[in-house]
């Protein structure tokens, strides 16, 4: 079984209809352990195609762990274990014969702290993912421009593509990371509190970017910011780890429902800021 990966060139990938690329993730019975300690218990969650799903909840409730499970970054941590299944468009990414490297190519990730490669130029940062997977885009310059435009960074950096990635401001670096993640044309983009290290203006800029890219790539975003979840997401999942218990999903549904008419009292408390 394979994810139908093939090494397509950039040109042939671009020829594909834009809408067909976004993927759907279905997590079933996901549990996670760190060094034998259960931190996440039986999470079932669907992240729908071309939608933005926000994972909200207090710190330490397993949101980020869950996010990292979705593209097999969880197993990078020493001592991490896991159970359950995660399906990308029906295929279990943890199934036998599935390679983590291939999964990550289809499910990209943007981290909390902007982490452009400091030894590469801005353009090389954008192309790095393709280079890592030995794909050579038909036209590098076009691809760099397309991706930086998608991330809303092109106008700011078009004259300085040869500068090193670290020369940008924090918000620009984060958008460069988004451009870098989009350049491999993932089907899903995971974002782990992408704005928590940024100022409000950069945050709004990135939220705009998320909305713009959502039609072609499914977005899953972890955020601590209720307003942000309301602004960007279509669906929400509320995670909670009650005292000495592993984290689990208390409630999930459309953002309107979670914020407007939550079923669970704990969800209502949290989204209205009465929590703890």
């Amino acid at each position, binding site marked *: 079984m394979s994810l139908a990966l093939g090494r397509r060139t950039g040109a042939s990938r671009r020829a594909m209809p834009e809408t067909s690329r976004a993927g759907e993730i279905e997590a079933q019975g996901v549990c996670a352990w760190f060094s034998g300690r259960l931190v996440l218990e039986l999470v079932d969650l669907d992240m729908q195609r071309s939608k933005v799903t926000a994972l909200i909840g207090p710190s330490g409730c397993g949101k980020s762990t869950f996010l990292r499970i979705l593209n097999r970054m969880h197993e990078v941590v020493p001592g991490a274990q896991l159970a359950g299944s995660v399906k990308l468009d029906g295929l279990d990414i943890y199934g036998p014969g599935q390679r983590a490297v291939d999964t990550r190519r289809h499910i990209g990730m943007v981290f909390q702290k902007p982490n452009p490669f400091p030894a590469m130029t801005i353009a090389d940062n954008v192309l790095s993912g393709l*280079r890592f997977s030995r794909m050579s885009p038909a036209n590098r310059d076009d691809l760099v421009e397309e991706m930086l435009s998608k991330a809303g960074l092109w106008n700011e950096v078009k004259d300085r593509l040869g*500068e090193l990635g670290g020369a940008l401001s924090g918000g620009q670096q984060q958008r460069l990371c988004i451009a870098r993640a989009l350049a491999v044309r993932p089907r899903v983009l995971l974002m782990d509190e992408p704005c928590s290290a940024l100022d409000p203006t950069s945050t709004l800029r990135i939220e705009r970017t998320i909305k713009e890219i959502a039609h072609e790539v499914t977005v899953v975003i972890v955020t601590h910011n209720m307003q942000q979840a309301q602004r960007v997401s279509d669906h929400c999942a509320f995670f909670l780890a009650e005292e000495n218990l592993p984290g689990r999903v208390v409630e999930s549904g459309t953002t309107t429902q979670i914020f407007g008419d939550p079923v669970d009292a704990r969800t209502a408390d949290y989204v209205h800021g009465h929590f703890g």
Partner: protein
Amino acid sequence: MTTDSDLQSTAPTEPVPITSRAESVSSPGLGPGLHSAAGGSLLLEQPPRPSVPRPKRLPSPIRPSDIGGPDVVVLVAAALSSFCLVWVVFYQLTLLSGIFGFLVCWYALFLTLVWVGTAQLVERQAATDRVVAVVVVTAAALIVGIVVFIVVWVAAKALPTMHWGALFTKDQKNFQVAQTDALAHVGILHAIVGSLEQVLLATVLGVPLAVATAIFLNEVGGRGVRLVRTVVTAMSGTPSVVAGIFIYSMLILTHVLPYSGFAASLALIVILLPSVTRVVEEVLRIVPSGLREASLALGAPQWRTVWSVVLPTARSGVVTAVLLGVARIVGETAPLLFTAFGSQVLNANPFVHDQGALPLVIWSDVRQAQPVLIDLAFQAAFVLMSIVLVLFVAARIFGRTKGKKGKATARRPADDVLPRMFVPVPMEGDPGR
């Protein structure tokens, strides 16, 4: 006080050359409204902006350059009085003797007096700061002094008798005791060639091994890490003569290898490996783990991550580690004694026969009775130090991060009068600025 954010909020979208007030007043095109009301010294061509005060250095209690006036008096007085007092006590009142003890007592008393004297001028805590500053500065000065002394001393011994032409073109086979201008007929070409070949071989073979080991220790990990790290640490404690004996007994006595430059480079690898491995490991450790995760999350396999992200990021540190390791083995003598064995004649083939080396020339010639050979030994020492110096300079140059194409500096006004950090660099179109 104008803060950084004030500057940025008023920054124009394009860098504008900053002209001095005198120039702008004399230029007729500018209306009076453009002049800063406060009579600031800076004026821009486009929208008026508040005058920016000149940057000033903040006072720091332990910056040596801030010690002035009264402090110098205190320092000099403390030095003189402590010298006199210790001299009287040391040589007149007691039976103590010895220059070393004298210096130590003098320094200790000097520090005490500096503290007492400074405490009269400033409060006690500040006085303690000053004393610590004096200790730190004298320690640094002592080290620099020792290095300068060694370099100058060797140069002074080597340069007056140096015969440049012969030194780099001849070997020692023509040496005759009774010759009048013997230095015109002998040189150290054999040693320079031998040293370069041995070090080059050791570097080519040893550095990839050391870098690979460091990558294993820091990037790959696993069960063996603690063992390997312990072994590497123990290896760095190996006396270099033992490295020589090891190669001698394992390879030369068993007739696997003849006495040769190659055997010497194997012994040098034993010295090179642990030091380069440890430094490269440290350098790799400071590469932020976020970069590795970013690379993995892009679908890069681990070897790709190490090769394309971790090593380029740590590039300057790795280059420095390698060059410092090379500089270390260039001067090693003991591992060569039973391996290269030393030779008076040029042998350009490192794989057969005895071969000379610079440290061996110094070691053997400086003990000879003939003044010519002693001179030659000092000249070899001078050449050796020059090679190490070149390596250190190379480490600084190549260790620097790669030049940035199209740097922001190129777009700044050339006659920029302010230090760089005070000039805001506008980012086009960024709504945040």
